[in-house]
């Protein structure tokens, strides 16, 4: 599979939010305004990208030699948790404003299934290290794209008359559902038509 095909797959065809339904918690939680949505998207992209590479290395250089492949879920969670802690510390030092805006959702990346999801998908698809990295970045970019689209929709929704009982989160879920329906238009025929498959 070429790198462009991997990129298209995880941004559009297997978009983590809208097709795989992974990582919905920050998707709904941090999409109230576009500024923090962009911050969250980039933080997730960074974590998925680095986690993909680190998890690939751990799997192939530590677990495979000792025949411990069955420990991949456990050790990946360990690595992702440590990685997110590190990102949190760096952010707190470098950009307190972004750190505040992300709030509780930054530690929540730890338990974000999107990050663990891409690490395991990389192994299951037998990607090499560079393909894993591209897949990780692409998954993060797909997440970023959908959370930015969502935040723009929600900013518009704030100005619209919405029934009291649908205000905020319920109307966001309905919008997300309609968006997911739209994304069903992307499937593997996209790769075939572009002669990438």
């Amino acid at each position: 599979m070429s790198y462009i095909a991997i990129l298209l797959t995880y941004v559009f065809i297997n978009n983590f939010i809208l097709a795989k339904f992974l990582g919905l918690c920050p998707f709904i939680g941090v999409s109230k305004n576009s500024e923090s949505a962009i911050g969250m998207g980039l933080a997730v992209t960074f974590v998925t990208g680095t986690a993909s590479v680190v998890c690939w290395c751990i799997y192939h250089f530590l677990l495979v030699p000792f025949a411990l492949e069955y420990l991949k879920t456990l050790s990946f969670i360990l690595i992702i948790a440590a990685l997110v802690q590190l990102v949190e510390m760096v952010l707190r030092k470098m950009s307190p404003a972004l750190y505040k805006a992300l709030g509780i959702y930054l530690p929540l990346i730890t338990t974000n299934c999107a990050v663990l999801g891409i690490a395991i998908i990389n192994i299951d698809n037998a990607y090499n290290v560079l393909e894993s990295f591209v897949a990780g970045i692409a998954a993060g970019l797909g997440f970023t794209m959908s959370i930015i689209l969502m935040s723009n929709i929600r900013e518009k929704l704030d100005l619209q008359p919405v029934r009291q009982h649908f205000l905020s989160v319920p109307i966001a879920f309905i919008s997300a559902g309609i968006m997911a329906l739209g994304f069903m238009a992307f499937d593997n025929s996209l790769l075939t038509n572009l002669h990438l498959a």
Partner: protein
Amino acid sequence: MNILVAFIVLAVLGGILGVGLSIASKKLAVVKDQRLEQLEAMMPGANCGGCGFAGCAAYAEAVFKGIAQPGLCSPGGQSLTDRMSAVMGVKAATVEKMVAYVFCKGSCSKTTRDFEYMGLEDCNAASILFKGEGSCKYGCLHLGSCIAVCNDDAISRDSDGQITVDPEKCIGCGKCTRICPNGVIRLIPYNAKYVVSCNSHDNGARVRKVCEAGCIGCRICETKFPQSGFKVQDFLAMTDFKADILEQEKAAQSCPRKIITELRR
């Protein structure tokens, strides 16, 4: 043998990550101003939001930056105001302790009902339907949304639906005052002696018809005891908590509805 290898590999991995993180946390430590740390440490930690900020830490930071004054924290009271002012090097303001009070004595047996409400046990839900089942549209709805929102277990309801606030447990955060759809529950000074326990702006005849307890706006307290500070506006006597206590006591005794309540602290 296999399990030993698994154990060792994971233990080494965890150990390396742990050591790495602890080094990183030392290197990337954020230096906080000592005064801000002191302020944060002295906050009550109730995170009630009564000050108007997102929580205790947010209020401490606002005081530190000079956006807010010390003295907005109701649970902390005077002693916290003094200590915060000392840290910030400003003169401490005097704060009056406020507690929540229910301005309605119309329990279920004392009031009439227009219909029977069988929906959610929630005042705001009941209020959507013709402002509740009670004939008095200003009074307590008896469903206890204030009890649910209170973090300090200060509000209780007796078998007749009468809601009371325990002034000793109340920290004055004002959450109940915001959840109540009728605004029946409001903050009054902890030291208040007499208060008109009614919220109804209906005219006297209507109040008599629907409630055994409510204020009918007869103006006896206002005209006979002008020093008592009670003022009738729109058929409801309002309380001035700074007025003469002795006059207020006399007014309370002469009230035909006995709705001017004496508060025993």
